[in-house]
Each structure stands twice: as C-alpha cells, then as structure tokens.
C-alpha cells in the first residue's frame, strides 16, 4: 500500500475535455503514443504489430458510441479517456511497492517502472480502466500528463503542454491547474458545467469533461419555421417582379 501525498501543494494539473467538439479523430491518442513511446515510460510496446492481433500500450483511447435519449433522439459520442489523475487515486493506495505514486507538487500520478512488479493491482483498482500493462516490459504504464514535456526547457515554451493538447485539431482539450479557481481551465469548467467522470466512485478525478452544448436544432421558438411566400403562385411572383421594374 502506498500513501497519497500528505501535504499536496494545491496544484492540480489536469485536462479539460470538451465533448461538444470532439470529433473522435484519434489525433490525441496517436500523438500521445508517439511522444510517450520515447518518453518517461518508453517504450509503449506494440505486440504483433503486423499480424492477426496487433495490440499496444496506449495512454489515451477514444471510445465512439451512440446514445439515445428518452425522446428517441440519437447522438454519436466521441469520448477520449486517459488517466484522470485523481485526488483519491486508488491505483496509488493499492500499490504494494510504492511504484505508483502521486506527485506532491502538481498531483500527477506516475509509475516508477524500476519498482513496479507488474502485479496489476492498480489496474484492478482503477474504476476508469486507465492503466496500461506492458506485458513485454512486465510493468504498468499510464498517462504521465507528459511530465517530461510540460516542464521541459529543451522545448519551446508553446510546446510545454501535453501532446494530446497541443495536437488536438478541434481544440477540444485544455491543460492547466484545476486547483486554481482562477485558472483558464477552472473558469472553463465553471462556465460550461464541467463534470467529474463517475463521481460515485469517489476518486475525485482532476480531469474534467465538458458536456455537449444544447443542439441548435432550430425547433425552438426563435427562428422562423418556414418562409412566407410573397405571392400565391410562381406566375404571380414573376409578374410582381416585372411590375416592380415598371413602377420603379
């Protein structure tokens, strides 16, 4: 068993994911993979990459599915999911070796591969299924929030955000300090009604999701439901246009 930070700094780095504009393009997932396969948890091993059952380590996966509401209206949902860097991270407290830990200074949950024994207790404990076991290496791997990118002075300032954020074509992903109520991400969450994934699990995830905005279907009161013809018939309309010329 491993303890969570006794004196967290109050900084809670995390992601805000906008389900209103995510089109499910997998850019975040693949860019994450290419950064991290040479990063802190390198490599993100792929087994049978050219065979019958290609399978690899991915820190971020996109789930696309359909839902239907009570009125029968359907919606296609694209739902990206990675580690949510929970405040009450069960993957940490369950770890028998201390390999799984939550950083005091920013709340990022990491795995120290040198001390991971590959027991998989953390993946059983995580209610989100966000852990990724690398069978080849025999250790558990997971989203690092690009800890080796976001502070890295070897990169230009604008690149110091998680790979999934800098690459997202629609701008559906934001990164920042969710512990600071005045940060851009906290304001975004407040203004858009951002929510916790599965709050009943009481993990207090740091990452937040923004719900889809109400659809502007036009069925409401504001826009006209149909245009009003200016005459009853097409012939009348042409005559009206001719009249307009003559009377002008």
């Amino acid at each position, binding site marked *: 068993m491993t303890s969570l930070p006794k004196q967290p700094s109050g900084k809670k780095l995390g992601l805000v994911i906008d389900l209103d504009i995510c089109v499910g393009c*997998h850019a975040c997932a693949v860019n994450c993979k290419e950064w991290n396969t*040479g990063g802190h948890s390198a490599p993100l091993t792929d*087994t049978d990459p050219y065979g019958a059952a290609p399978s690899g380590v991915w820190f971020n996966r996109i789930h696309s599915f359909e839902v239907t509401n009570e009125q029968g209206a359907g919606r296609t949902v*694209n739902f990206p999911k990675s580690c949510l860097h929970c405040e009450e991270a069960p993957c940490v407290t369950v770890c028998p*070796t201390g390999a799984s830990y939550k*950083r005091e200074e920013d709340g990022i949950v990491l795995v120290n591969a040198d001390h991971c024994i590959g027991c998989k207790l953390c993946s059983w404990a995580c209610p989100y299924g966000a852990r990724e076991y690398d069978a080849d290496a025999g250790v558990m791997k997971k989203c690092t929030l690009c800890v080796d990118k976001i502070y890295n002075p070897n990169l230009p300032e604008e690149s110091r955000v998680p790979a999934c954020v800098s690459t997202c*074509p629609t701008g559906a992903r934001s990164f920042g300090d969710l512990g600071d109520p005045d940060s851009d991400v906290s304001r975004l969450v407040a203004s858009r009604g951002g929510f916790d994934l599965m709050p009943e699990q009481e993990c207090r995830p740091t990452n937040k999701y923004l719900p889809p*905005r109400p659809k502007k279907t036009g069925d409401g009161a504001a826009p006209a439901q*149909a245009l009003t013809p*200016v005459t009853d018939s097409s012939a009348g309309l042409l005559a009206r246009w001719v009249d307009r010329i003559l009377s002008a």
Partner: protein
Amino acid sequence: MTEGIGLRDLRADTSPLVSDEVKYTTCYMCACRCGIRVHLKDGKLRYIEGNPDHPVNRGVLCAKGSAGIMQQNSPARLRKPLVRVGARGEGKFREIEWEEALALATDWLGDVRATDPSRLAFFTGRDQSQSFTGWWAKQYGTRNFAAHGGFCSVNMAAAGLYSIGGSFWEFGEPDWDLTKYFLMFGVAEDHDSNPIKMGLGKLKSRENAKFVSVNPVRSGYSAIADEWIGITPGTDGLFVMAIIHELLRAEKIDWEYLKRYTNAPWLVIEADGDAEDGLFARNVTGIPLIATKEGKLLPISDRKAEPVMVGRYTLPSGQTAVPAFQVMAERYLSESYAPEAVAERVGIPAATLRRIAAEIAEAAFENEITLDIPWTDWAGRRQEKMTGRPVSMHAMRGISAHSNGFHTCRAIHLLQMLIGSVDVPGGFRHKPPFPKPCPPGPTPSGKETAANTPLGGMPLGFPKGPEDLLVDDAGNPFRIDKAYSWEYPIAAHGLMHTVIHNAWAQDPAEIDVLFMYMANMGWNSTMNVPDTVRYLTDKNPDGSYRIPKFIYSDAYSSETVAYADLVLPDTTYLERWDCISLLDRPISSAHGAADAIRQPVLKPDRDVRPFQDVLLDLGVRLGLPGFVGEAGTALYPGGYADYLVHHERTPDIGPLAGWRGADGTGQGRGAANSSQLDAYIENGCFWEKKFTPEQSYYKFANKAYLEEAVRMGWLAMPGPVVMEIYSETLQKFRLAARGHGALQPPDHLRARIEQYFDPLPLWYPALLEQGDAAADYPLHALTQRPMHMYHSWGSQNAWLRQITARNPLFIHAETAAAAGVEDGDWIWVISPHGRVKAEAKLMQGVNPHTVWTWNAIGKRKGAWNLKEDAPEATNGFLVNQIMAELLPPRADGYRYSNSDPVTGQAAWYDLRVRIEKCSAQEAGETAPMFKPQGNDYLLPAPDILRYGESLKGGTSGRAPVQEKDWIGNRKELSAKGTGIRPGHGNRIDKKDEEDN
C-alpha cells in the same frame, strides 16, 4: 502502508533532451499538407508535431500525421528496383540496380516516343507534384496523362470552376471567424482534415453559429453538428433545389449581389431550334447584353448600366431574350421542387426543408454582417463597407462521387450566389490563386501528337466548348480514358479509373506502356477489383500480356506492385524534396497565398529514389526538351530540388512563389534565386503572403485584390470574375447535340449530351438508379475512410491499424432487423455485379436506406507486408469488389463508364445493394479471397515493436542544436550525414564539390 518515499523516483526526469535536431517539413500522411516539426535524436525520428506558424494547421496534427514514425519505419517499404520474374500478380521479382531499371524504362519509353507517344498512358494517383508530372507528360508528348482527381472530386472542382471561379476544399473555405450558419454537404468523415476540424472547433465555440451537416451517416463531423440531416444518398441536389424554391418564393435573395457579380441579368436568347438558342445575346463586338428598366439593351461593359432581372426583350435580330435570372427562377419555382414534392425522395420531411430554408434566410438577411473596410470594385466604384451574408457552405465526396454530382454541386453554388454569400464576410471564401474566370485557364492539349514531339500545351485543361474536345473527325475519343470526349466532355482531371479497363479493351486505342505512380489501382482505388486484376493479367494468344508493359512507382508494397513489370521504389515523405505549388494544388488560405516545400529530414536506408528525381533522370535519358540543354546535358543536374528552384513555367514564374529574384525579395514573380530553398527552410519550409483587409473579400470584383492577383501571376487581367448562375459553356455542348455547329457528337451520344448539358443545375437520379435497375437492390452502399486514415496513401501503419484493422458493414438497426440480421452476423452484400462477405454492425445514426463501410481497410493477403492472418485480409472487405466500373449495357450493347456524364467523375456512391445473412458454414472470413501475393523482396516484419526504447531521456552524446542554429546550415548538416546535400537547391556546384 508503504511510505514509498525512499523508493520513488523523486524527480521523474522532467527535462530530458528531446532531440538533437529539429527540422521543418511538410506532412504527406494525407492530402492536407500540414507543416510539421520533426524531432530527430541520434538520426532517428523522436517526435513529429505540427508547426505552430504554418497556415494550414497552426500547430495541430492529426492521427495520421502523428503516426508518421510508423510510416517511416514500415516493413512494407520497397527497398530496391524490382523486375518481375513470375507471372503478373504473383509478386515474384528480381532486385535490380537503378542503372538497369532506368535503362529498361528508357528503352520502353523511348521506343514508344519514337513511334506514337500516346501509346504511353501515364497516370499519377495521389501525386502532389502534378504541375511537374503533367509537364513531363507534355514534354514526352503523350495526351494520356492525369492524376487521381477523376476518381476523387472532379465534380466538385469542375462545378465550382464553371460556376463561381473557385471551389470547395483546396480552393476555398468557410469564413470560420464570422459565419453564423454553416451547411456541410456530404463530407465523408474527414475531408479535409485539420483545417476543417480547427474551423469547426472555432465555430462551435461561438454561441451565435449553427452547424448543419447533411450526410447519410452521423459519423465524423456530423457527430458534433447542431443538426444532422440524414439525407438519402444522391438526392442532395433536390434538397438544395427545394431550398432555392423556398427562398425564391419568399424573395429571400440578394438582388444587388446577383446583379453586380453574377451573370443573372445577362440576356439569354429564346430561339427554339436555332443555333443561338440559350446562348447569351451579344453586341457586335461579342459583349453580352443586359436590359435596363427603360428597355434599353446595353453591353455588360457599360459601367453605368442598371440591369433588370426579369422581362422579355426583343433583340435587333428579332429574337427575344430574357435575363438568365428569369430562366433560373422559372425552373426552380416549379412545384416539382416544392419541399412536399421532394421530401420523400430526399428522405427528409418537408417541414424540415422549409425550416432550413427559413434559417438560411434568417442568417443571411436578418443577421447581415458589416465590416468597416472601405474597398473599390473593379470598375472604380468605392464602397464604404463590406457587407456579408454569414451563411457558409462546404461540400465534398458525398456530393461529387455520384453520377449527378456535377449538377448537384452547381446547385449548391447557385444557392450560395442567390443569397450573396460567395467571398463575403461570414460566407464561403476563395483561397488564392482563386477566383479565376469561369471556366479557368488553358484548354486541354492533345488533339495532335507526333513522334518525338512535345504536346502543344498541358494535357489537362478546361474545355470552353465542343471545339476543345479531344476527339477525332468521327467524334471518337483520342484519350485512353476517354476524357474530353463526347462521353465525358468536361473531364478536367481525366478518368484514371477507366484506364486499366480501356487499355485492356483496346478502346479507343492500344497502348504499349502503362506507367503509374502512387495509386492502388490493382486494389482499393479501382472499381471492380476481380475484373481489373483480370485485365492486368490477361494474355494474347502468343502469351504476351494484353497490356504489354506496366511500370509502377510506389514507396510501399501495395497490391498494385504485384502486377508491375518494373517497380521503381519511391522514398517516404521524410526523405525527399517536394513542392506544394501555387501552380498545382495550393495550400493558400482565405487570409493569403501560401506554398511550401518538403526537405529530406532522413536519409533513405534503402536503395530507393524520389519519383520526381527519377522522372527528371528519365527525361534526360529520353532527351526530352526542357530536361536537356543543347548539348544533351541535364538542365537540372541537382534533381527535383534543382528543378524547384530553377524551372520557370513562364518567365519569372516557377514552382515556388516565395523569395524569388536575385536578391530573394520577389514574391510571385521574379528570376530564379539559388538561395530560395534556404530561405524556405529558414522560414519553416513555407511561404505565406497575407492579404490586406481591403483585399480580403469580394475578391472576384475587388480592385485591390485583382491587381494583386495580376502582380502575383494568378490572373492575366485585373477584370472581374463574373459568377455563372447560367452556364453558356454547357449550352454550347447541348446545341451541338441538337445539330448545330461544325462539331457535333456522334448520333448515339446526342441524347446524352442534350440531357446532361443543361445550362442550369439539374437533378436526375444516379445513372445506376434509373429505370428499375435498383428494384432488387433497395440499399445505397457508401464508403468512407476513418478520420485516422482519411486520404492516407500508405494505408498500413502499425499504430493506426490498432484502431481499425477490419471493417464491418454498418446497417441501420431497423433495416437489419427487417433482414433478420443481428450485430456481428456475417452477411452477403450483393449488388447486380457480385457479392462480398462482411460482418454486420448495427447503428442508429445512418439513413435507413443506406449501408456503409470503411474503405481501404481490406487488403490482399501478402500485401503491405502484413501477416496472412491479419484482420485486414481475413475480415476486411472492399465494396469495390461488387462495384461495376461500367454501367449496364445500352440497347446496342455499349457500356459507359460508371461516371458522371459531364465530368467523368467516378460514381463510387451510386452503388445499390441488398443484404442476406450468410449460412453458418460461410461465416468467419470475407470473400472473395485472392491468392496471397509474394513479398520476399521485403525485410521480415517484426513481431514486436519497442520503438523509442533507445530514445528515452538522457543525452545522445551530441550537443543539442538550438533551432536558430540549425536552420539553413545546409553545408554543415550535410557533413553530418543527415541526408542534406550541400549547395543550393541540391545543386552540387563546382565549388561545393571542391570543398568536399
């Protein structure tokens, strides 16, 4: 509790060295051509990210671009030139040296050129250097050249260029910042990738904009639309015409815009049966006429004339004429276009059609945008403000890949013109070098060809009338693909999808050499795979192949490679020079002009050569004018990079627009500049020239823009580009079909031309749906590619295939239930042409009369160096297997190509099918199944990838190179063996050689 403190890596290394070198170049994982920053460590790819400064992607990068590492390291990469030793299709080759390969190709191509150059068919697929490859074809002297546009989106391109002087995608974009109503038609999943996604993110994040997606499938962008209109495939034209009907009836149209910027007021002659019927009335000097309210007929060049839009006027000839607007209005006011009349066919309730029309009108006319930007029109009339109708539209494959796509796309442009939303604030915006005159540019060349002689002009162009067709005296096609014939007169991008069939059928002529590049025409880029394979392998009685010689260039071991006699292995996109040119398919935005280069960031570890270098080499060996000087020496000895810098298409205009002239300050025009590529590299491998606010909108009539366009070489004259609601060009073809003029179609094609060359947008059922042909096949079958593979040519990738390696047939749950099909069942998908076996996947968000699947997932066993039990081969399927490349026979037995009758665009989306559950014995694997193709010329594919293991953290032993230090240091970098050659533009100057 384990305290853990003593065990944990207290400081995870947050600052590892990422790369020892960062190079900019241009992505080629799809057709978007985003700017990328490539991080290299120890000479290996560490990370590819978007270039934040690049006009196309502003720093973002899609899944494909991010998977470039796996494309670069693919075990499917070809390694050395190959000559076939087995039978075609077996995949048995012998590796040969380049000298032998090039000598063989020169031999074949030289013989053809010395007899009849058009016995070479040169078609280049997903080629991004078409202005170069087309020029090669021209200098060689064959008329038989095109790239992949004919089976991609020529309907969209041609309809735009014959209507508004520009087009969707590469030629224009919505005004993402200002639009309030965005209507997207038939955009299959992700076309074009990053710019649209960035725009949608922006648009959706504003509270005042609505996004409507008209698409039979609710995937991709449709998933985030405010409203999804699940239209029945092929009926978009009717949908748009019903909206036009509603807008006209309510007079919700922009009269002033139509009057000033379109040919709506031009007088159309009414003379049924005469040679002038339907042409514009013109004065003695040939200037079209308008009528004033006083009934005066004035030329459109009269800048003070105030035209009227309706009425019937008598011409000096005694004929009568009415404004084009009236002809148009009379058509669409017809009750046959009323929402009620079309609703069932379109699959959308009439009330919804009426509401969409009302919403468009509200956005256009109640929510007008006014920008305080004074501007002056072409005639010198100053305007104080720029007014915009903030309704924008975008259309793509779902419109163009039907045999009624040209007219459907023209209908969308008509709608845009009627509400005054082309190139205005909030509307659709042109990207330079567009707009261009309707139709633009030169006409196609190739009426006459001769041995050892270049063509008079470029093989592709835009016909302006029957006189520009490439047909013989009897009206029969000259070109192997029958482009620019009476069958497909406005085939502006050619018909690559017909070449293999026609070459086999020797219709209209025999060819000797088929030469293709970067197009999987033996598999997923062809219709009717089983017969196409037969055409490629069929033999004459003497044992020789019916298509005598087939040269193919590709970087990867695709299905098509197996059929080639000679394989010229290309490099990857990270190993080559390239150019994204304004002469070709530009990457400009509405904000300004742009072009870009690729530079080699890695050195090939195989014996492969960039295809463009190979073409230059062949050009020299063949002695093609423009490739060799007087003494027979190479004019571009430094290869393609040398060409990019020093080639001039017309004086002072070359492939690259930036940093021209001796001092490198020229933009658009200027002498060749030997330091040009250095300047591009220093700027991140792209050039951009932004417009001033005054030049930004109304470009078709904006003096400041038009003068800039002339300065830059995009337009010959600063005159206005008049948009065409009524196409006199089309009417000219129709008149020929009616028996007028010196050039007339053969009798058997008269009715076809008469029907489809309507000067106004027309709707007709897709050709395969006409008659009762579709009765037994009640479902429309569509394909698209998933976002993470959209438009991607090397379609096997170790990472991306983990997302999608098999493709089911998606079926509406109710449709499936009616057929007794459950999720996961194996089913037969049956068309009149054949059947293919697939797994069923049920969904809700699809038009109930439509089934669909992902294209290009299914692969032939042995192709792309995948294992034979890969799901792509066992479970992946192509609907191409059951798609006829020819329409059913006419009464006389003749079969047209399965294409749009105006443009020859491949009608991929006209397919009709029915589904049947497989028997239990049949379930488990797709069919038809082809014999595995050999691939022992490849290295074995690894069983495990630990990519990046050696790249983690630490230092590489080389000092990090700061960005400011590496850019432009070509000479220094070349010494490090990075694949960069010294000298300017890859030209090895004498001095450089001495230095080395």
